[in-house]
């Protein structure tokens, strides 16, 4: 049944609908594959095998009874551990939440359950989504399926590695500064950060509330669109949720497969997101893709976004400031662990301080302290206030660019997957890595990463980032699906079919319970 794990969600859905394959068979195939490969890769923090099989059996029964079901009903999915799930532990990769089982589901989780998708488990991530490599998880690293000595990106390295290694056709991610798009780029998968407010964040453990957005992770653009249609739309439980009606992203992706879908599409290439600091093979594949787009009838213009130069600086003021406030909720009273101080009196204040010392990892402490500094009296105007002004300037850069072009493009990340430990000792080196993805979060616009080939020098995946104006998410799916089809027909295969075969391990892998 291993072939079932190789199928896209859309292809699997067809077999489920025609009842050639049952949801139980599909779920079991994925669970078996997790058992075979995830002891080594460690994409999952928790696998809920029995619950997944029970859910799948219910879907099979409903389908046999002739119930009207969502096309994705019976398709397995992995869920980033930042999203609250009332039947699985939710830790956000942090010791401070070890073993916490939330009393409610995140809205996106409730929506995918209602649509009949089958949750397989929870995926690894940098602690509270702070990081670009998943090395900051309190529960150990996740390996990149393309090269086990390299990072799978972050913070959503677990979700990206899970889909790239065929442990799940779909996953949910969250993207505050690139945590869906950069892992997609370095694992050869697809990831979408929707328009800010386009997908509910109720039940997503907050990192930086003015930047966080939940979105789909998959192996194809069409699969991401199908999942986007399930999770998107207004949620009264999230006061930042947009009340707009949304077109079908799946229909938009299908439009991209039609002949001539790219003819006359105006593409802007951002001058500031190229050149120095970009790996040669990344630049090469990016330029080759642009040439292919020209041959398909697209018009390419270079556009300038002069204030993008300040985006990383602004982001690393705004994010820590908001995070230091959001993470104040971990007070050792309502949820999470409680640790008593080794000495001194057992007051609430001392217990809280000892709990946070023991429960938070180094990167979380670094960002909370930095955020506390940026918000301090005397520094607020110079740092946080200035960063918010930069945000205005970046929005203006986007507005100017989108007055000339339909979509913007850049490499999704400046380099391919780097080695474990390479940037761990130097926080700024890790932060600069997000230079390509951060502007979209600051402005609230949607962005997508799709694979565009392997860098010749290291044979590792390169991603293309596509950005559209706020609320024009559908445009990403049309253009993304068109480019994906163009590239795959030029290669004669999909990107992930080229990934090295994973060796199954004989060890006991993820069973029910934390691993």
């Amino acid at each position, binding site marked *: 049944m291993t072939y079932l794990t190789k199928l896209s969600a859309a292809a699997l859905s067809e077999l489920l609908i025609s009842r050639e394959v049952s949801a139980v068979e599909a779920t079991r195939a994925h669970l078996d594959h997790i058992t075979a490969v995830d002891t080594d890769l460690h994409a999952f923090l928790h696998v809920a095998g029995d619950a997944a099989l029970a859910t799948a059996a219910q879907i099979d029964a409903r389908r046999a009874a002739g119930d009207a079901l969502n096309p994705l009903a019976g398709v397995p999915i992995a869920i980033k551990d930042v999203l609250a799930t009332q039947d699985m532990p939710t830790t956000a990769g942090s010791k401070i939440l070890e073993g916490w089982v939330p009393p409610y589901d995140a809205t996106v989780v409730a929506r995918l359950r209602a649509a009949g998708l089958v949750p397989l488990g929870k995926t690894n991530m940098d602690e509270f989504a702070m990081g670009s490599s998943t090395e900051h998880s309190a529960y150990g690293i996740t390996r990149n399926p393309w090269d086990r000595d390299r990072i799978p990106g972050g913070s959503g390295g677990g979700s990206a590695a899970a889909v790239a290694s065929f442990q799940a056709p779909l996953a949910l991610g969250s993207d505050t500064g690139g945590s869906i798009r950069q892992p997609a780029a370095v694992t050869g998968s697809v990831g979408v950060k929707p*328009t800010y407010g386009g997908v509910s964040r109720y039940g997503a453990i907050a990192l930086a509330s003015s930047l966080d957005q939940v979105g789909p992770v998959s192996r194809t653009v069409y699969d991401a669109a199908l999942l986007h249609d399930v999770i998107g739309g207004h949620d009264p439980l999230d006061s930042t949720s*947009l009340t707009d009606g949304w077109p079908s992203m799946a229909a938009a992706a299908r439009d991209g497969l039609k002949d001539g879908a790219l003819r006359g599409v105006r593409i802007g290439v951002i001058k500031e997101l190229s050149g120095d600091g970009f790996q040669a093979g990344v630049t090469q594949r990016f330029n080759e893709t642009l040439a292919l787009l020209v041959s398909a009838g697209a018009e390419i213009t270079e556009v300038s976004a002069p204030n993008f130069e300040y985006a990383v600086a602004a982001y690393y003021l705004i994010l820590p400031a908001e995070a230091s406030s959001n993470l104040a909720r971990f007070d050792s*009273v*309502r949820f999470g662990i409680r640790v008593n101080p080794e000495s001194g009196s057992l*007051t609430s204040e001392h217990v809280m301080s000892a709990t946070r010392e023991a429960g938070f990892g180094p990167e979380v402490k670094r960002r909370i302290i930095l955020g506390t500094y940026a918000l301090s009296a005397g520094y607020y105007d110079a740092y946080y206030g200035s960063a918010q002004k930069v945000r205005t*300037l970046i929005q203006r850069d986007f507005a100017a660019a989108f007055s000339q072009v339909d979509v913007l493009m850049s490499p999704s990340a400046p380099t391919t997957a780097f080695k474990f430990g390479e940037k761990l000792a130097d926080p700024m080196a890790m932060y600069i890595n997000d230079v390509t993805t951060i502007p979209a979060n600051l402005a609230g616009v949607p962005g997508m990463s799709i694979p565009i080939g392997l860098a010749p020098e290291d044979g590792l995946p390169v991603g293309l980032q596509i950005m559209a104006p706020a609320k024009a998410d559908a445009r990403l799916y049309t253009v993304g699906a068109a480019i994906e089809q163009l590239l795959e027909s030029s290669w004669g295969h999909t990107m992930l079919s080229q990934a090295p075969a994973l060796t199954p391990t004989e060890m006991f892998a993820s069973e029910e319970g934390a691993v």
Partner: protein
Amino acid sequence: MSEITAEQVAHLAYLARIDLSPLEITNLTHDLGQIVDSIAKVSEVATADTPATSHPMPLTNVYRDDVVVPSLTVEQALSGAPDRAGDKFRVPAILDEE
């Protein structure tokens, strides 16, 4: 622009309610100095006449109907608490004896 000192880091850690070891304070003093030097460049372009943006998609007056809807039960709300006393969260002493 930045002259981050160990005393400052210790004070910030107190404000943030995180105990730090002396080694952590030393490391964070070094890291923060570097990071603040890099991010201080925001002030180069943030002129007085540039308005601040706090939120990417400005929304105002988000209301819902004033109706009672189901909420967590007491058991659910207490289910993740490290300590409880009956139907309440049990917290350590608020005031120090000293």
